[in-house]
């Protein structure tokens, strides 16, 4: 029913929340940026001690019996990732203020970003496999929340779920791999495992461990064939794409492989898996990045290509390849984060994300254009940017690898693609003729372009200051990856080497492709626009749904008796299985002779009464039979030294029978609802269950258990509680709180009964069915 008054109130409240979140959100954004920069500075203060004296460690015992400690370690590799996470995180918080400004849920957005930043930082610092896994899953969860942030859009929800399921499935494999690794290596502490010879001792668990851990890392870092979730994750707001899905989270898998490479790396299996997946991934990313026209899709696929490069480099192994991976990872964070933020600014200001519908924007946004140009030059790998050093080292590593032609060819191809993709984002929108836009681009606020410009400039500064970088950042990180102390020296000018030639070739070809026949090239090859191997995901999801529905229909029939049947049958199977191996003699049936005649007669009477209660056609007969069983119980209590129980049972049985008779007198005669076959089935199941109870009881009673508690009560009832009837003393003294609870239950039941008697029933309408 429409309620105009209430609707007005709700929208009024919403707009109020809006303004409040707007101001509070901005302040919170700055505060979080400060927090991130503070963490960055704290980590930066560790650079010198780590480089000079080795890793810093901190450990709190958490679950020592399981080998789980809250153990953190800061070494060169953690520092590289930690500083990327916090430094870029701070810039992203500032950027978000402009990008998401005025969004009613800005506060939630920032909170989710904070959750991600802290989880990712924990991942980079964890020194225990289980702790790392927990942080790993937390990054998956925060990524899910952030991809689906615009939850009113179905494609955002689908992309979020897909990312969660793919990385979550990988996470399960990872957990299994970690447990195997812990079992094989004898410890869950990563630094201890890295010091052991798990890989080279030819351990039987090595291969399964490696495959499971690679599954986790490959799904997280969007490697072939799991990369499809990453382009779909571009449904997230752009700050998220820049932060999680290019600069940090997607590198978690790379980080893990680098972190564990001293323990797992260097074997033919490792090389085969990582180089194979990395090469396929970089080729797929290189191709798809060139044929896409949406700015964020271009960047997403070129991120896939870069992730392939990192995996390949770690797969090759050795000092040079590790150096290439580390330098490239840092450089990639600088330029790709920048380009994503630039794409976000362009989309925010013009409403367009198609590269070919953009142009001439440098006048409206000069600072953004400058950041974009710097990032493009960095992405192309021109000196003196850090990327140039990364690419030189990478080419050197591939030329020295066992498969120089294939891998070097792959690197050259992906470098060409990077130039084309970078130019499509960094050049095309800014130069050439201006276009018509749905929104007229206004002045871009400083908070918006500051982040990308700082990040792009950092890429340049890191390249110029390569001596400092080598000594304090790269060398400790490479030492952590190769597992021994190394000292890296790189130079922007090596002389005329084959690497330089290949690098220059890639840049020239890249710009050539872009400038000379970019448009024609693009339209010429888009006829082959393959879909990523996503159909496996969809087919798997459909199959899972079908199985779940079938199981649900079987187990959740909606009929009470089927629930009871399933429960009883399950319990029966579980308990009967161990009973199958018991020899008949072990039940000691000869003990039946110790019974007295009157006891046996009573037992037979009760048995007959039970059968009668179960089968009587009239309700009154069944009640009488139930009464016989109840009074029989009382008699047995009396025979076997339990007079209190006997008294209580007599009284209560009498009350029960009276109550039932009073109620049943008002009911119409009983009908038969079930068919003979179903009665037979139920009787069979019930008798089997009863048989299992009997068998269990026979076995249990043959070994009478002495009761220490019984002896305690026997000794202390009179001395401590001054009562001679021990059962009563237990109830009202030793276990008085129990009895108090029992009184409460009975009172509640009494209130329920009373209210049912007093309140008239609402009659069912006869014509309603």
């Amino acid at each position: 029913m429409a309620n105009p008054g209430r609707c007005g109130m709700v929208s009024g409240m919403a707009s109020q929340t809006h303004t409040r979140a707007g101001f509070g959100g901005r302040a919170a954004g700055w505060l979080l940026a400060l927090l991130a920069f503070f963490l960055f500075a704290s980590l930066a203060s560790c650079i010198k001690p780590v480089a000079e004296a080795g890793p810093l460690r901190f450990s709190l015992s958490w679950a020592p019996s399981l080998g789980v400690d809250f153990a953190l370690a800061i070494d060169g590799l953690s520092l590289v990732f930690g500083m990327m996470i916090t430094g870029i995180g701070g810039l992203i918080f500032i950027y978000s203020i402009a990008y998401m400004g005025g969004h009613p849920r800005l506060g939630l957005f920032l909170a989710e970003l904070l959750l991600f930043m802290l989880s990712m930082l924990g991942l980079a610092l964890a020194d225990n496999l289980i702790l790392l896994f927990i942080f790993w899953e937390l990054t998956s969860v925060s990524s899910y929340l952030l991809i689906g942030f615009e939850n009113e859009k179905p494609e955002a929800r689908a992309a979020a779920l897909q990312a969660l399921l793919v990385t979550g499935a990988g996470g399960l494999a990872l957990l299994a791999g970690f447990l195997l690794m812990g079992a094989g290596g004898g410890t869950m502490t990563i630094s201890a495992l890295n010091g052991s010879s798990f890989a080279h001792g030819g351990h039987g668990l090595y291969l399964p461990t490696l495959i499971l851990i690679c599954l986790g890392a490959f799904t997280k870092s969007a490697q072939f064939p799991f990369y499809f979730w990453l382009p779909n994750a571009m449904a997230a707001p752009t700050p998220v794409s820049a932060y999680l899905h290019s600069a940090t989270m997607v590198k978690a898998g790379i980080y893990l492989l680098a972190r564990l490479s001293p323990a797992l790396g260097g074997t033919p299996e490792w090389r085969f898996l990582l180089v194979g997946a990395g090469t396929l991934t970089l080729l797929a990313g290189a191709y798809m990045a060139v044929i896409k026209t949406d700015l964020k899709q271009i960047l997403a696929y070129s991120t896939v290509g870069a992730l392939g490069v990192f995996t390949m480099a770690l797969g090759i192994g050795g000092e040079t390849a590790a150096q290439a991976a580390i330098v490239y990872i840092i450089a990639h964070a600088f330029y790709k984060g920048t380009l994503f933020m630039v794409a976000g600014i362009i989309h925010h200001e013009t409403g367009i994300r198609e590269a070919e519908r953009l142009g001439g924007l440098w006048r409206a946004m000069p600072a953004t254009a400058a950041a974009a140009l710097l990032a493009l030059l960095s992405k192309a790998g021109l000196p003196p940017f850090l990327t140039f050093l990364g690419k030189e080292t990478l080419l050197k590593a591939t030329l020295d690898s066992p498969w120089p032609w294939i891998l070097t060819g792959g690197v050259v191809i992906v470098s060409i693609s990077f130039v084309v993709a970078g130019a499509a984002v960094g050049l095309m929108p800014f130069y050439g003729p201006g276009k018509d836009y749905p929104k007229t681009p206004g002045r871009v606020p400083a908070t918006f372009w500051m982040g990308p410009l700082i990040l792009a400039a950092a890429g340049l500064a890191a390249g110029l200051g390569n001596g400092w970088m080598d000594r304090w950042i790269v060398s400790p990180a490479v030492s952590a990856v190769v597992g021994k102390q190394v000292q890296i020296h790189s130079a922007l000018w090596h002389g005329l080497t084959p690497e330089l030639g290949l690098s220059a070739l890639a840049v020239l070809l890249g710009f050539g492709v872009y400038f000379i026949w970019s448009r024609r090239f693009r339209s010429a090859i888009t006829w082959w626009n393959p879909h990523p191997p996503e159909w496996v995901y969809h087919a798997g999801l459909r199959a899972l749904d079908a199985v779940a529905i079938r199981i649900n229909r079987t187990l959740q029939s909606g009929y009470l008796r089927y629930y009871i049947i399933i429960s009883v049958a399950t319990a029966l199977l579980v308990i009967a299985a161990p009973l199958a191996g018991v020899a008949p003699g072990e039940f000691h049936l000869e003990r039946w002779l110790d019974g007295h005649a009157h006891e046996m007669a009573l037992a037979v009477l009760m048995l007959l009464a039970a059968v009668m209660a179960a089968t009587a056609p009239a309700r009154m007969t069944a009640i009488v039979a139930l009464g016989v069983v109840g009074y029989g119980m009382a008699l047995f209590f009396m025979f076997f030294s339990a007079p209190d129980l006997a008294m209580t049972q007599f009284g209560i049985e009498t009350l029960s029978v009276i109550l039932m008779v009073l109620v049943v007198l008002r009911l119409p005669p009983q009908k038969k609802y079930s068919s003979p076959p179903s009665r037979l089935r139920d009787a069979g199941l019930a008798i089997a269950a009863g048989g299992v109870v009997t068998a269990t009881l026979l076995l249990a009673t043959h070994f009478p258990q002495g009761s220490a508690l019984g002896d305690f009560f026997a000794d202390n009832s009179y001395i401590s509680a001054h009562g001679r009837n021990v059962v009563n003393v237990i109830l009202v003294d030793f276990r008085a709180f129990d009895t108090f609870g029992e009184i409460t239950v009975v009172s509640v039941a009494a209130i329920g009964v009373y209210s049912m008697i007093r309140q008239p029933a609402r009659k069912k309408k006869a014509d309603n069915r």
Partner: protein
Amino acid sequence: MEVILSFLTGSLYAAGLYLMMRRSLFKLILGLMLMGHAANLLLFTIGGLKRGAPPFIQEGMSRLTGDFADPLPQALILTAIVIGFGLNAFAVMLIRRVHETTGTDDLDEMRHADGPIR
């Protein structure tokens, strides 16, 4: 005597379970009550059976001595009997109320929470 009571307990369980698998609400409650008896008997049997040795401390003594029935299972069963009665009384009134409201005793006709009841 444990053997005979074991068989009796199993039979009570069987009868109770059989009744609980019926479609009639009355039989379901009847089965529940039989199961209550069965469970009490199970506890009683497993706690050890003693004839003529109730856990009373004799005049002039300060503790139980000699052969005596374990008081702890008895205390537990006493609680169970009383709680069971509360449950049964409520359930029996529920049979009446359900019949007054829906006009039926058939559980299959009560499957739909949003059904004919207004």
